[in-house]
Each structure stands twice: as C-alpha cells, then as structure tokens.
C-alpha cells in the first residue's frame, strides 16, 4: 500500500481513527486521512461504503462518535463556536443542489456572505456576479432556481459555496442527479476550480474526472479506506482485490 506524501505540519484536514455508527451499523471504521492545502482528493467506492458519510462528518452534517477531526487547526467537537468557524471555511456542494427555491440566484449566493461574514450588500453582490461569471451564467442572476436547468442549478450551487471564500470545498456526488448532457458543464467548472488551487474533496463516480484532476484517489469499502494513491497508480496498478473488482465493474 502506497502512502502519499503526507506532511503533518501543513495538513488542512486531519482525520484520526474516525468511527461512526448508525444505530448498530458501523458506517466508518477507523478512517484516518490527512489532506494538504490545494490538494484534490477524489473518493470513490461502491454505494453504501461510507464515502458520503465521511465527507459530511468533516463539516459535521453528520456527527462522528469516535476519533478526531481537525480542520484548519480547529477540532470538530461539541464546541458550537468551533463548528461555526469550521463551517465558514468549508463550502459544500450537494447531489440535489439544495438551492433555496424562494430566493433568486443572486439572493442564494449573497445570503451567507451577508448573514455570516457580514459583508455589505454591494460587496456580496459584486462577489456573486464575479462568481456567476466564473461559472458561466451571469444572465441568470435574477431568476429563481426553479427556472433553471439542473446543470445551471448545480453551477449556482458551486458559486454559492464559493461566495463564502472557503479554504476547502466538499463535493457530494455533484453530478449524480444531472442529465448526461449537463454533467460536462459542471465538471468543467470543477476542473477550473481545481486548477485555481482550491483544496477539494470530491465524492464521485466520474472516473474520467478522477484520473484527470485528482492528486490522490481514496477507495472506500465497508467504511474503510481500502486503498489510496495517485490516479496513475490507482487506475493502473491497484493491488487490493476489492479495488480491482470495483474498477473492473465500473470501467
């Protein structure tokens, strides 16, 4: 098993022996990962392997029961102010977009910067328009999410997450709910983001994306990291039988 070059001092996310149970069922078993700044980590694995649960533990949408998660030097525990501070630094994109249907695109994006970061409306809107330009849909600013296509909605969701100027972006199967012809436009935005130096954790089934963009690939199975490595290593010479089986089914 190859260990990617991990430097403890610089790691922006440190997970040590993270365990989580849903009732009797253990979803995460001693998961230990360190993520460096600007690193793009792609997490793959069969469904139910705990990969979504894992990244949701990082911003505490799910609560881990054992182990330690440290984000940007702050421990994710029961401390309310820590949780709030960590969430400010992490942006998240969901499979179902989760845009707020009662707010316009612009309001969706400016909500958190104004309410959480206390920016002026002017600053928040300038930032929002800049981001909408970046994801390629500035003309949709004053529409409601219900009036956009799936791909456009997901791009708004990415812009919304970026508006908080996070240090880390979490992507939870961002393309799974999209029609095939819209997947590319979202992946393009994500690639551009990766190239700009954003720290990203991506749960996805898009192997092409993983191969092209990832610095490191983690393979989850039954709540464990079974194997990890660079894309080249992972897709060419994976060792573990579970990994091989999975790759043979998916490729």
């Amino acid at each position, binding site marked *: 098993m190859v260990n990617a070059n991990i430097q403890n001092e610089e790691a922006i996310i440190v997970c040590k022996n993270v365990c989580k149970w849903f009732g009797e069922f253990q979803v995460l078993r001693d998961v230990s990962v360190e993520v460096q700044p600007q690193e793009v980590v792609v997490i793959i694995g069969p469904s139910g392997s705990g990969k979504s649960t894992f990244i949701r533990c990082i911003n505490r949408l799910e609560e881990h029961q054992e182990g330690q998660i440290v984000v940007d030097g702050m421990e994710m525990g029961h401390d309310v102010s820590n949780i709030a501070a960590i969430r400010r630094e992490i942006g998240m994109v969901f499979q179902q977009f989760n845009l*707020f249907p009662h707010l316009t695109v612009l309001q969706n994006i400016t909500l958190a910067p104004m309410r959480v970061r206390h920016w002026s409306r002017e600053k928040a809107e300038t930032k929002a328009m800049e981001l909408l330009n970046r994801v390629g849909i500035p003309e949709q600013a004053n529409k409601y999410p*219900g009036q956009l296509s799936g791909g456009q909605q997901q791009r708004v969701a990415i812009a919304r997450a970026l508006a908080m100027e996070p240090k880390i972006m979490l992507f939870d199967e961002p393309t799974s709910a999209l029609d095939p012809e819209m997947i590319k436009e979202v992946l393009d935005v994500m690639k551009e983001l990766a190239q700009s130096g954003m720290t990203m954790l991506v749960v996805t089934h898009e192997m092409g994306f993983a191969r092209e963009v990832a610095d490191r690939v983690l393979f989850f199975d039954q709540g464990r990291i079974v194997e990890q490595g660079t894309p080249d290593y992972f897709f060419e010479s994976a060792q573990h039988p579970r990994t091989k089986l999975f790759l043979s089914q998916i490729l």
Partner: protein
Amino acid sequence: MSATQHQPSSIPSFLRDVRFLQVIGQIVFAILVVFVVSRIMTDVFAALQKNNLTPNLAFLQNRAGFDISNSPSWYTSNSSYGTAFQVGLVNTLRVVSVGLVLSTLLGILIGVFLLSRNWLVRTISRVYVELLRNTPLLLQLFVWYFIVMLSLPIFREAYTFPPEGVAHIPIRIAFYGILILVIWWRTRRWEIGSFRRNAIISGVAAMLVMIEIGFWLYNNQPSWQSVYANGDMTSSSFLLYAVISAVLIVGAWFVPIQWRGLTLGSSIGQAIGGLLVYFGIIPNSAFRIEIYPAFYASIRGFAFPELLTTARFAEWMAFVGLGIVLAIAQWVYFGRITETTGKPIPRGWYALLAVVIFAIVGWVVVGSEPAPVSIPVLQEDQTVYMPLEEARAGNLLTIQDELQYNPSPLIFRLPERTNFKFIVGTEIQPEYMALLLGLVVYTSAFIAEIVRAGIQAVPYGQLEAARAMGLTNSQTLRLIILPQALRVIIPPLGNQYLNLSKNSSLAIAIAYADLFLITTTIMNQSGQSVTGMVMVMLTYLIISLIIAAGSNWINRRFQLVTR
C-alpha cells in the same frame, strides 16, 4: 378512401357548434334557476303573508324585550332587535378574533412539538392532536363547560392567585441571585468538567446549602439560637467545627484527581458558609410583602386586574407615538447601514429601547405636570373643593374623578369584590372561557398537524445546505425553513380559520350569547324566522369571505416562482 363515408349530419351546423351549445346550456340553466328561485320565493312569501309574517327588516326596530347575559352597556331589554343582533355579532367577533390568534400560537407550538427529538414531548403532543382531532367539538365544549367550568367553586369561595396573605422574602435571596449571576458569568467559558469549574460550582452550592441549614436551625431550633452572629472564636463548638472543616479541606487533596475539584470546592464552600452565618455577615431579616389576589376563578367567571386610561393618557400616547416614529426611523437607518457596511446591528433591540425610553420619559413628564390645587367632589350632596390627596383619603373620589385627576396616564387596579359581584376588575364569563378554550384547543390540534406537515414538506437538504453555509439555527429557521413552510401551511390554515369562525355558532349549546343564540331568540319572539336565518347566513358569509380574502392575499405573497 375508407369504406364508410362520413355522412354529413342532418342537424344544422350552428346547432353542432360547441361554443353555441355552451351558451345555450348556460342560458337554459340560468332560466331554470331563476324560475325555481322565483317559484320558491313566491310560495314562501305567500305562506308567510298568510301568517302576517311577511319577511321585512322593519321588525328590527321593535323592542327586543329580553336580556342578554353580560351584555355591553349600550344594550338593555328596551333596545331594539337590531341592537340585540349587533350584540350577538360583537360577541361572535370577540370569541372568533381571540380564538384565531390563540389557536394559531398554540397550534404552532404543538406542531413544533410533534417534530421534537424528545420522545416524551413528541408522544404527548401526538396524543393531544389525535385525541382532539377525533372527538366531536360539541362533546369537547360540553366537557369544557359542564365539567370544567361548572365545577369551579361558588363565588364566595373563588380560587385566587396569588393567594391573599403576607409573604416574607429573606434579604439573603437577593444576595444569592447576585452571587449565582456573577459565578455564571465568570465560568460560562470554562471547560465543562474542568477542575476549577467543578470546584467553584460545588463550592458555591455547598456554601448556600450551609447558610440555609444554619438559618433554618436558627429560626426553628431553640437550642441553636445562640449560633447566629455569635462570632466567639474561643467556644469549643466553633473550634470543633474549624478542625473538622480543616480536616475535610486537607483530606480533599488525597481523593482521586477527577473528584478532587468537587470535594475541595464543597469542603471550602461549606466552611465559608458556616463562618458567614457564625459571624452574622449574612443578614437574617426579610422583606414583608402583602399579597392581594390578581386573578379570581369561580363558577361566576374569571376576574383579572384592569388597566384604565386616565385623562392624561392621550398626552402620554403622544410620547409613545414619537418613540415609535423614532424607532421606525432608526430601524430603516440601521438597516441601510447594515446593507452598505455589512456590520450587524441589533436594530430590533434598539427600536424597542427607543420606544421604552420614550414611554418612561413620557410617563415621568406627564405624571409630574402640576395637578389642580383642589378639585370639586360631592360630599353629603354638596360640591366642595379640596386637594386630591385629601379627597382620596376621605374616600370621596368616584372612579370618574380618579380617571380625570390622577396624574399617571394609566391606572392599574386589582379586582375587588362584594359578596356577589366584582366592583373592580376585568371579568370573563365562564361561557366565553369554555367556548374560547374549546375552539382554541380543538382548532389547535388541526393547526398543529398543518404546521408539522408544512415544516416536513421542506426538504431536509435545505436544512443541510443552510447549516453547511454556517447559518445559525435561528437564521436557518427564519430565512430558509419558515418562508418555505408557510407556503404549504397558509392555504389549509385559512380553512381552519373558516372552520373556527363557523364552529363558534356552537356557542348556543353552552349558553354563550353569540350571534346565533341571540338570533334564535329574536326569531322565536318576532316570528321572523326567514329574515333571521338569512341575516345569520349573510353575516357568517361575510365573516368567511373576509377571512378567505385575507388568507388568499397572504398566500399570494408566498407563492414560489418555478419554471
């Protein structure tokens, strides 16, 4: 070419035109309706005419000749039927308007409870909803009136709250309050379970317990009378106590580390508490407070304190109004600042503060205006002039005098009663209370379900997205959940409001003099049943239409824009 040729119909083409047929259908229907209605009207009028009961509105001018329970001052049995009808309308509106507000508040509360993570709260509220939704309202009203209200004690033995009497509040309670507040403020950021936190909390607790034990013994056990404020450091019992305390404190160092904070804190705390009592540093005196009941409940009704507006109320309201204007201006101004700089300002609190400050200043200013040196009062059928204070001391002031000359804008008066009625206080009839409670509790069960469904209709992902963005719980509720839930909640909520207003006519079963009860009496006495029925129907129709219009208006504001 198909084998069967399409045969041109023998019916003329305009008779086969869908548009023409629709128009014809409507005309036929309209003629039918007009015919039936006019036929019925003719028959009804003929039958009524025969009995000298031609429907008309002239009878509304006739003397009613019956009393109405708890009627307003503008109604007596000499008033007209029309006035009686107005009393009924006012009574109905009185119960419906209060009922709408209360059932909404209670319904929202129970609806949130239905979604609680606490099993007990969730189950109790579920039982509440199911029990009330699935039993007839009439039955519930009977229970509220005949079982709950009619089992209240008779007038002379009314329940009172707080019970009349004298309370002694020890001065040291204030000291406790300040101490606990200071400790909470100092330790609020300390780590839970840490040594110093355990030590200080257990220490304060032990000290307070020790002081209380000391005072209890001093006040109740004659043999301990000498202890309080004795301060003699040479007595053998003091020395024994000092030694035991010292041993406890020293001994605390030897307990395991996780218990050390607790033991050390409590042994030091109890020693301090004991010494404070021994040296008399904590006073044993108490405030004596006379308590008069503010609330009475008996089978004749409920009585509350009353708030009366005096002649100076208008002046004071001018101040308050000024405060409100300023508060609004402030609100807008701070809102702009927040928009442009992003700086969060608690503008709601500032607005409240502005109103409160103006109210207080206005109260002082208005209250300190010079009163007339002497006022005219009636003494032994003679008008004499004397100062306000003297007249009040001589018990010569009527309530009108009091309202005219009292310097404060508002007078607050506790209920006062004679042997069989209240002479001061706001009264609520048991019939009103039973109807209000019945309607509110029944409707709240339905509203609770609507609120629960509305909140559940907001996808969980919305909550997660809001959390992931770092919004606080209250922001999430206010900005994300509620606007979306309301859109689902409002249309059925409007229906429940309609139900409540119509259900209020069940008042007749529990003797509350509402619109329907009074009209029943009017119809019986005047014989004008048809007119009465139509009047009641139209009134309820208007009330319903107003409620429906209101809920539609609100509903339009919450509709979502979609593709």
